[in-house]
């Protein structure tokens, strides 16, 4: 290793193993998130100084095995294979040791220097599992450190071990499988030409080649090296005849048996252990009746808390901006300087006063529910309903995230295995009222028409999503593969972890959205100073005034609603030239509903369009835009007829 380079430590582990909690207790508050090059999948990383030595610590997305089955796993693994970290820290959930060891033995095959963090030993103890860490280390051939990341226990010992491994640069040796399978792997290793691009080592490459029968690289191989392909097919056929199962199953079974054997030898189960609090709680949470009542209660409380915190905070934060604007107007008059200052104030005020009060509590609570393990339980309970609209329970998390912001929600669809499910979920997410649209619904519908109208708006919105899901799935003929969802053990959420994740998400949002918000307000101020907004209003008049029966001046707000939905409200007030409280003097209650319905659905905002384009392709992004415009026009007309 070069002297001046900071060594890279990568945390790898199965989902829900406490990996991110461990990362947080190592990295502290300085962590940053970045996208993997060319993707929107995020990883968190941090440079830490431990007793004078620097380390770059990277937290990769959770992965069950080194054979990826969803796009998020695929990106995580190509990073692992491509970047060759100096040390891999494999975080293993001690309470489900044998399954965790399947990944550990696979990482062992990969052969990078490695340390195992045997995490959540407290949960294991509660389940009556007594662990023998030194024994496990001897059997795996790598250091094993018991940790309880939640309480920061064992973290120092883990880092000491990481430095020890860094100094020694000792690579693990894979633990051997059955002789007959090893012999076949040996045959493939011998077949590999000397210039073949190995992933880490020859044995690992050979195993991956054998496993990856139906993957695209198999076909490529036949063009590049027909000899190797023929040899590989022969070995594969022999192995399948030998074991009577497809090769991927033979290898999965070998790993499974090895992991089971190591787990059994390194742990003991105490019998007669009383059922612990989490099992009892779980039987209530997932109860066929109580479960749904609790779920409804959780959602209700969720939104209640957000609005109870958001409302007062909003008026508290917005007040100074309004007062400052009045002072400026009195002092400068309607000059260009005033318009510029007004644009800036509206932009910053919109960001600080309208978005943050609702967005921050939503992110925080969402993160807490995820930490607790409740989102998976909600997925279990809601699966049957989502089935009716052609989806399954794994879409619950992206949907709930969508209430915060559609952009990360669409990114989160990557945890769905099939492309069909991803496309359908991503097409429905833009119809979920994100925090920006919720702000509009609250500010306009709840404030002027009462909370029951806002609630009705929400309920109607959910029915709309169900209807659209049913409609779209009529066109997506390919059946959904169905739900396979791990239900992790319940964990008390860590305040530190939740706060940190909220902060990171907020930071990303501010960096992305605020420049747009301020820029948009500036442009609108300038447009109104130069009276150019009239032209845009005239162009949109047939739709806005004739079609929807709204004031002519609101045409311009639709343009900016496309940039960021939360701009719509500020833009509306600015376009009508009223302050918030005197809105009813210029438009009627009916017009408020029509405006809210139209603005909520008429087009996914710019960033949602961009993320749809990147995640599910141009064609589907255009479908989404067309769908939104169609739904918005149809619904607004319908509302206009009814109200």
């Amino acid at each position, binding site marked *: 290793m070069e002297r001046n380079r900071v060594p890279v430590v990568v945390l790898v582990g199965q989902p829900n193993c406490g990996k991110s909690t461990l990362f947080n207790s190592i990295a502290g508050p300085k962590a940053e998130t970045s996208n993997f090059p060319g993707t929107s999948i995020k990883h968190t990383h941090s440079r830490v100084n431990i007793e004078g030595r620097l380390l770059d610590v990277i937290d990769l997305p959770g992965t069950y095995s080194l054979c990826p089955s969803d796009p998020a796993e695929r990106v995580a693994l190509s990073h692992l294979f491509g970047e060759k970290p100096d040390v891999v820290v494999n975080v293993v959930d001690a309470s489900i040791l044998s399954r965790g060891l399947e990944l550990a033995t696979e990482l062992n095959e990969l052969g990078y220097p490695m340390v195992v963090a045997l995490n959540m030993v407290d949960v294991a103890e509660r389940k009556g599992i007594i662990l023998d860490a030194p024994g496990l280390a001897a059997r795996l051939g790598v250091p094993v450190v018991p940790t309880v990341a939640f309480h920061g226990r064992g973290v120092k010992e883990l880092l000491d071990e990481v430095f020890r491994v860094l100094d020694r640069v000792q690579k693990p040796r894979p633990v051997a499988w059955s002789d007959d399978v090893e012999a076949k792997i040996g045959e493939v290793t011998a077949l590999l030409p000397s210039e073949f691009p190995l992933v880490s080592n020859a044995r690992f490459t050979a195993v991956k080649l054998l496993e990856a029968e139906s993957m695209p690289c198999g076909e490529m191989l036949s063009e590049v090296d027909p000899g190797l392909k023929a040899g590989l097919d022969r070995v594969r056929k022999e192995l399948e005849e030998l074991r009577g199962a497809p090769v991927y199953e033979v290898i999965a079974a070998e790993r*499974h048996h090895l992991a089971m054997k190591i787990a059994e030898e390194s742990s003991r189960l105490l019998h007669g252990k009383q059922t612990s609090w989490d099992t009892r709680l779980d039987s209530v949470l997932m109860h066929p009746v109580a479960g749904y009542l609790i779920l409804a209660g959780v959602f209700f409380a969720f939104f209640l808390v957000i609005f109870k915190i958001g409302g007062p905070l909003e008026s508290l934060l917005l007040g100074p901006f309004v007062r400052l604007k009045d002072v400026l107007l009195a002092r400068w008059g309607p000059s260009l300087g005033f318009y510029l200052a007004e644009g800036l104030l509206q932009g910053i005020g919109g960001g600080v006063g309208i978005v943050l009060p609702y967005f921050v509590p939503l992110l925080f609570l969402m993160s807490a529910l995820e930490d607790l393990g409740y989102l998976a339980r909600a997925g*279990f309970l809601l699966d049957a309903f989502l089935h009716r609209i052609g989806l399954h329970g794994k879409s619950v998390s992206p949907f709930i995230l969508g209430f915060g912001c559609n952009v990360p929600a669409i990114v989160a669809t990557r945890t769905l295995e099939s492309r069909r499910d991803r496309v359908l979920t991503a097409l429905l997410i833009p119809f979920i009222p994100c925090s920006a649209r919720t702000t509009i619904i609250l500010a306009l519908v709840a404030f002027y028409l009462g909370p029951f109208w806002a609630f009705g708006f929400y309920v109607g919105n959910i029915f709309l999503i169900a209807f659209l899901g049913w409609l779209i799935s009529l066109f997506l003929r390919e059946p959904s593969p*169905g739900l*396979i969802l791990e239900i992790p053990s319940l964990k008390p959420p860590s305040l530190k972890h939740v706060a940190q994740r909220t902060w990171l998400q907020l930071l990303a949002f501010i960096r992305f959205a605020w420049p747009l918000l301020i820029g948009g307000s500036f442009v609108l101020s300038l447009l109104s100073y130069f009276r150019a907004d009239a032209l845009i209003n005239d162009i949109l008049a047939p739709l806005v005034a004739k079609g929807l029966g709204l004031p002519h001046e609101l045409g311009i707000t639709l343009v900016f609603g496309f940039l960021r939905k939360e701009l719509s409200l500020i833009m509306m007030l600015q376009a009508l030239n009223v302050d918030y409280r005197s809105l009813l003097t210029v438009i009627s209650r009916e017009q408020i509903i029509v405006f809210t319905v139209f603005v909520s659905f008429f087009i996914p905002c710019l960033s949602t369009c961009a993320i749809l384009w990147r995640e599910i392709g141009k064609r589907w992004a255009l479908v989404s835009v067309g769908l939104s415009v169609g739904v918005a026009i149809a619904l607004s007309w319908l509302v206009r007829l009814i109200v």
Partner: protein
Amino acid sequence: MPEGSMTLIEAPPNSPLRIVGVEGGEAVRRRLFCLGFHKDDVVRVESRAPFRGPLLLWNATSGCRTALGRGVAAKVLVQTVDGEE
């Protein structure tokens, strides 16, 4: 289907079952293997969500809990096990 076996959907609740086979396409089978469902594992159907919802399974061999949609559960073949898990 091996003799005396049934799918998880037909299996009695809360009694130990041994997995004797996993049917279906490669993608579903690989995913099940990843989540700790293998041949010879002992599992138990803990509950079924109403409205034809998913099954909640406790895998005694790997010690983890998983929800399987009915479509997936229909692909897992099991036999009842006598005695303790």
